[in-house]
């Protein structure tokens, strides 16, 4: 560490020295346009600068013998001896060889023009366009075929990502996240801060992901954090302040309408009126429960990055604070993180690098989602009668469950959740990676690296004595996860006879992951003072719990990249994975891939077409796998439980309800055909891909007759298919004083369950909201995964009750009448980005959308049809319900005996188009005032989710209440924490 400080100190110090001559000038590109950000170094020293936004620069050099080195990515480096000049204008020539950037692929990098697979890149500017809790949110709409759905609007809530659809039933469908080469174990890389990221490469087709073998089937997201570059030290400072607000309130009945509504219910049920006409008159608007728990919430970010270095050592160090309050009072998320990346060349042959991120996220939760009849916080604010207020006259919380005898028994005053219940998780997360690279001779690199991923979480939850029916309850749990990684690779590159260049990669890796947890709880406390600090003082201490799990993965990998005259490109890769999770004898899986690309634009017959700059055809095939099971899933383990005898607990041991079996990998084979084309001197880029993914040996839950005692087992049966088309277009419309760049992408995916065990349906877990307790999602051969499965309505009977279609004509309405009633998978998802700049102003507009997906509005089951419990409801129910005079009303007769099933009524169109971000920035022209130590300062105002166009009736269409890695219960909105819209002001400064 001391050495590190010393090194940093040296280079920061090194930038000030004797100053003799000031040289200034401008650097322009081929079209005589000023090039901003060109690096200018004084040869043999660490002194340097970069050009400003107009391409101008000014630098002090020690003597007339000094040599300036002008370098810029994509251009040929230029060296100029100062001599007697004080003004040096330089024209840089385009370097055709390095015209395209290098992109990160598995275990290496490759020039974009040499790519044979399908890959999307999201760059720092897009990733950091607006503040987000989770870096994955920044990927949404940026790359074709990458669907990002937040499961909830709560701060710190998980985000689920699907690349080219859903492959697995049993296993996770989340992609593999690889951070600076480290394949991390968690589903979301929450350790990272958006501003720390240099780029995200999304590997989509099998020829790109097969190098990750058994973890590549869902795609691979390569995240690269910022690294230092040699040259002048860069200081980047960013700060932003945002205000989040509820996007919209639901239009509910006011107090007067509520009273009339429940008088109608009483009348329909032959009961005495709930309210007298006199009472109704005085009610008016009543209390707005939505305004009770939602607030305007601030979101703040601060980030400082210092980077730089010389030819031998480069570093990047950053510190970040992210601090978000939720729009629900009491909820919030904050994260402090520190990161450092250092590269150092010990000699010409030996170099070392080290990168580490330390992060301390803290999530404060409030009761979030689910429940029914006002039993959860979100459901209570919608259900609470507007005729009632939150407080009694003596200042205590009103008990809403007993306020009306005909009201819901579980309706809870939301203040209980806001003020009397806490749930907080604080984590310490470390991701560290060190590598040593040995290059004994030109072309050969031996790299040995090791990494540690560690997460140490503690969750505390406490319910006070003041919470309804509470005697005080506390629980605390810790979970420790540690993963070790060792990677050892050899790379050899060689060009033979000028035309044949190849790169060979070989390596072996080992990774393991151990999870341990410990939890304790207690109920019944004398005082709230102790919170979770003294579980032992509980009247009834809970049973402590512990958990242990370990998996290990051992792999061999190899890859050949071959290029002939830069015209024909070939990639072949291979990986063998041995995983502890699988049965002995089937632990090893082999994942090959091959891809071929043809750069037609290098062919003579096409080379001289004036409008065409680049044209490449790609075709690739590969096999990848999915580690779809948990550790120990193939072992006959006994589960423990507790029973009561006398008045004490006794332990029981028995097998679980899942019958273990011999299991092997599930394998996904993907074929991808793609085209990359550039036109008009690279002003228009088009990338198009068509793919077919077939997953076989699908690890599937096979239901067993439940009388067996084992209700299911897992087997390698079944097949699933995803196929689709992706298109990305990027174009520069204007590039003079007024610049306008447009990027658009769209991804179509069709998902189909091809084969299931014995052709039998697989049902999702039942949804239980009391009024309905039934299965909603289904896997059925020939239909998309997770389709909604329910009854179809056919109007009302003579009493205004809902009638259902008897699909099998057996005279009865029962489970055999359920059919597919909706599809949570979108037809296509898309994004559109436009950046206009003029002089110092920059306007960015980013739109993102999803089309054709259905949402099952589970919240509306209770909220629009459960009439026996005094729940408040949308005004629409009051205005349009069945009466003999209104037989085609939207809602049935308002009666406590109105029953409902899982039906097509609740399936809504979840399509949306959203103005995800709009930003107006202004670059303060410090250079006009000759302040040169400031390179660039941008102030901006932006808004996130400002506009949303959707037919979805509830709060927000970006929702997936039961979304998680392996859930087939997709597309459900169940009293979810709503998404906020945000207005942000910020500064980005570079010194």
């Amino acid at each position: 560490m001391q050495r590190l400080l010393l090194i940093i100190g040296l280079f920061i110090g090194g930038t000030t020295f004797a100053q003799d001559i000031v040289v200034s000038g401008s650097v322009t590109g081929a079209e005589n346009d000023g090039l901003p950000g060109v690096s200018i170094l004084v040869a043999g020293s660490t002194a340097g600068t970069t050009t400003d936004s107009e391409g101008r620069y000014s630098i002090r050099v020690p003597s007339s013998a000094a040599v300036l080195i002008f370098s810029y990515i994509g251009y040929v480096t230029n060296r100029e001896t100062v001599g007697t000049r004080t003004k040096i204008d330089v024209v840089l020539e385009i370097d055709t060889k390095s015209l395209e950037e290098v992109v990160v692929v598995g275990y290496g990098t490759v020039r974009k023009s040499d790519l044979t697979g399908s890959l999307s890149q999201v760059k720092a500017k897009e990733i950091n366009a607006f503040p987000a809790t989770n870096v994955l949110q920044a990927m949404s709409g940026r790359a074709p075929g990458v669907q990002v759905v937040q499961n909830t609007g709560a701060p710190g809530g998980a985000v689920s990502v699907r690349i080219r659809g859903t492959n697995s039933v049993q296993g996770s469908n989340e992609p593999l996240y690889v951070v600076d080469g480290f394949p991390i174990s968690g589903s979301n890389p929450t350790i990272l801060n958006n501003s720390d990221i240099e780029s995200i490469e999304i590997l989509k087709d099998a020829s790109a992901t097969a190098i990750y073998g058994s973890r590549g089937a869902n795609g691979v997201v390569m995240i690269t954090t910022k690294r230092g570059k040699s040259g002048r030290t860069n200081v980047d400072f960013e700060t932003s302040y945002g205000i989040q607000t509820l996007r919209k309130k639901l239009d509910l009945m006011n107090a007067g309408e509520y009273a009339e509504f429940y008088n109608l219910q009483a009348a329909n049920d032959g009961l005495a009126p709930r309210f007298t006409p006199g009472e109704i008159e005085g009610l008016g608007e009543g209390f707005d429960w939505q305004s009770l728990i939602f607030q305007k919430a601030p979101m703040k970010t601060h980030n400082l990055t210092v980077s730089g270095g010389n030819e031998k050592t480069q570093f990047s160090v950053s510190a970040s604070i992210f601090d978000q309050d939720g729009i629900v009072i009491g909820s919030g998320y904050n994260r402090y993180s520190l990161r450092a990346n250092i590269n150092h060349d010990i000699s010409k042959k030996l170099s070392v690098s080290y990168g580490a991120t330390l992060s301390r996220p803290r999530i404060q939760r409030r009761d979030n989602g689910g429940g029914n009849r006002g039993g959860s916080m979100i459901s209570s604010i919608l259900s609470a009668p507007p005729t009632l207020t939150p407080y009694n006259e003596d200042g205590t919380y009103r008990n809403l469950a007993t306020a009306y005898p005909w009201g819901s028994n579980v309706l809870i005053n939301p203040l209980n959740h806001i003020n009397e219940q806490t749930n907080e998780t604080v984590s310490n997360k470390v991701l560290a990676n060190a590598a040593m690279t040995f290059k004994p001779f030109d072309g050969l690199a031996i790299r040995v690296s090791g990494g540690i991923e560690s997460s140490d979480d503690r969750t505390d939850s406490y319910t006070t004595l003041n919470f309804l029916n509470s005697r005080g309850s506390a629980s605390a749990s810790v979970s420790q996860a540690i993963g070790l990684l060792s990677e050892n690779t050899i790379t050899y590159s060689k060009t033979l006879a000028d035309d044949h260049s190849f790169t060979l990669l070989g390596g072996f890796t080992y990774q393991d992951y151990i999870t341990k947890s410990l939890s304790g709880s207690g109920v019944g406390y004398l005082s709230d003072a102790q919170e979770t600090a003294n579980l032992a003082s509980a009247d009834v201490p809970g049973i402590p719990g512990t958990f242990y799990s370990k998996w290990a993965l051992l792999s061999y990998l190899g890859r050949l990249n071959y290029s002939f005259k830069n015209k024909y490109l070939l990639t072949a890769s291979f990986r063998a994975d041995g995983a502890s999770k699988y049965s002995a004898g089937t632990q090893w899986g082999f994942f090959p891939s091959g891809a071929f690309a043809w750069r037609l634009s290098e062919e003579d017959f096409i080379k001289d077409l004036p409008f065409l700059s680049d044209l490449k055809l790609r075709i690739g095939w590969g096999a990848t796998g999915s580690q779809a099971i948990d550790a120990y899933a193939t072992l006959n383990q006994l589960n423990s439980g507790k029973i009561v005898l006398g008045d004490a607990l006794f332990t029981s041991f028995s097998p679980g309800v899942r019958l273990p079996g011999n299991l092997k990998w599930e394998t996904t084979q993907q074929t991808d055909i793609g085209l990359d084309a550039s036109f008009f001197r690279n002003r228009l880029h088009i990338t198009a891909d068509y793919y077919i993914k077939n997953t076989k040996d699908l690890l599937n839950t096979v239901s067993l007759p439940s009388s067996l005692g084992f209700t299911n087992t897992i087997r390698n049966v079944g097949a699933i298919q995803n196929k689709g088309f992706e298109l990305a277009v990027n174009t520069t419309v204007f590039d003079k004083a007024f610049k306008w760049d447009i990027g658009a992408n769209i991804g179509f995916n069709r998902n189909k369950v091809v084969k299931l065990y014995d052709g039998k349906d697989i049902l999702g877990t039942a949804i239980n909201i009391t009024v309905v307790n039934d299965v909603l999602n289904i896997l059925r051969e020939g239909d998309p995964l997770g389709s909604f499965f329910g009854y179809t309505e056919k109007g009302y009977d003579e009493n205004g009750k809902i009638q259902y279609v008897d699909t099998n004509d057996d005279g009865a309405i029962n489970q055999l009448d359920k059919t597919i009633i909706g599809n949570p998978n979108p037809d296509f998802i898309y994004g559109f980005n436009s950046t206009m700049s003029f002089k110092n102003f920059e306007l960015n507009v980013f739109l993102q959308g999803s089309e054709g997906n259905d949402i099952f509005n589970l919240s509306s089951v209770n909220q629009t049809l459960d009439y026996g419990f005094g729940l408040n409801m949308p005004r629409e129910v009051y205005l349009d319900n069945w009466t003999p005079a209104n037989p085609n009303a939207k809602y049935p007769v308002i009666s406590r005996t109105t029953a409902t099933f899982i039906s097509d009524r609740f399936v809504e169109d979840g399509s949306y188009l959203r103005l995800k971000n709009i930003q107006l920035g202004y670059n303060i022209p410090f250079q006009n005032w000759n302040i040169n130590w400031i390179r660039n300062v941008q102030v901006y105002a932006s808004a996130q989710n400002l506009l949303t166009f959707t037919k979805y009736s509830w709060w927000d269409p970006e929702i997936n209440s039961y979304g998680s890695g392996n859930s087939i219960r997709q597309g459900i909105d169940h009293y979810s924490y709503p998404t906020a819209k945000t207005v942000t002001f910020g500064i980005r400064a570079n010194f």
Partner: protein
Amino acid sequence: MKKLLFLVPLIILVSCEDALIEKPKSLAVETFYNTAMEVESAVNAIYGPLRSDVCLGGLYPAQMEAYVDYAYGRGSYGILSEFQGLDPTNITRTGQMWDQFYLSIRNANLVIANAPKGSKISQEDITKYVAEARFLRALAYFYLVRNYGGVMLRTVDNMTEQSLPRSTEEAVYELILDDLTAIENELPDTPSIAGRPSKWAAKSLLADVYFYRAQYAEAREKALEVIQSGNYSLVQVTVPEDFEKIVGPDVVVTTEEIFFLKYTRQAGYGFQLPMFAHHPGSGLHGAGGYYAHYTDSQSNPVFKEWNNNDLRKSYNWYNYNIGLGANSYLCKKFSDSEAIGASGAGNDNPLYKYSDILLLYAEADTRVSNGPTADGLEKLNMVHRRAYGNNPTQPSAIDFKLGDYNMQTFLDLVLKERGYETQYEGKRWLDLKRTGRVKEIIKAAVGKDVADKHLLWPIPLSELNFNTVLDPVRDQNPGY
């Protein structure tokens, strides 16, 4: 530093293949069931599913109490009080119960199959634990056969076979009787701890099985053995609150307990049924309540005609306005104002209590004797006297008189008394079904016609869809 470079790969190579062997730090099926302690914990696992919230601990009795003559279901249980069969929500619930009963049966079969092979267990212990397992297996099948009719017969011989046909009701009863007659004398005279079966529990269950099958002579005989054991007596009460000493949450065991599912006031280990009974405003349950059942003091004839001097009436019910008028009553037989969470009430589920056996005897004896006998009458009077605050064993002014009844009126009287005595215990529906007069009694009490499809639950899709020898139409119960 360079040394490290070469060391790292070496370390990995050495540890490699070993790393792929799983060491889960858990117990494996293959090496279990050897010691008495291990087998006992495996026996305990038979209780787990039976006593769970989604089975006898909550959903089962809550379901049963929605189709009785003295009360009504409300909310999602309301539709059951129409007696027109089960709706999807309740089919899901009964399906969950099915799974739990069969999970218990599997766990029992594991004990019956594996305990005798134990390497470090005495023959005496093997006998004891196998007997307990067979008792519990018979209990689970008894619930299944009464509610579903003939079901798949899972025994140690076919416990790994995936698909089995439905057996006949007769075959199921054969297994139940075979189990119970084999072990009725192998179980201990007094259980090692309350909640495990004694031989008297086995005889009571056996009596009930015979009784349900109208084998009254055998039922009478087994009931008499239990009564004559002298192990049981009725606890005397003088005021309604005294019933708290029998069914209250703090009671550990009483002299009335023959076989109860035991619960304790701890989150997740308590009796869930009380949660279904109460209104949150009543304060009778620590976690509020679902008030899923109610009755009406004016419109329900069973309740209306019930003598107010019966202490059970004021102990069991409380007036509470649930928005259905002023005459609504909720059941407070099982209450725990200090319950910890929905599944945290300390009350026990009284599967077999002494009064059940006394009344069973009274009826069986009458049927065997073709008319009321003094012996049978006395058993009825014991229960009746206690309910009115009298000494159960001393003649009293409120005693029924032999001369007032013929066989039919006496049987009606016993059936009525059984209704009072077993309220909210989930027993009434099967008791009415047993008599063959369920349609008539329900029509008279609550004015509903019982549909035929209401008499049996549907075989759940979790069975029908995956049991390949079943025909989803032919093997389903009528009406579903």
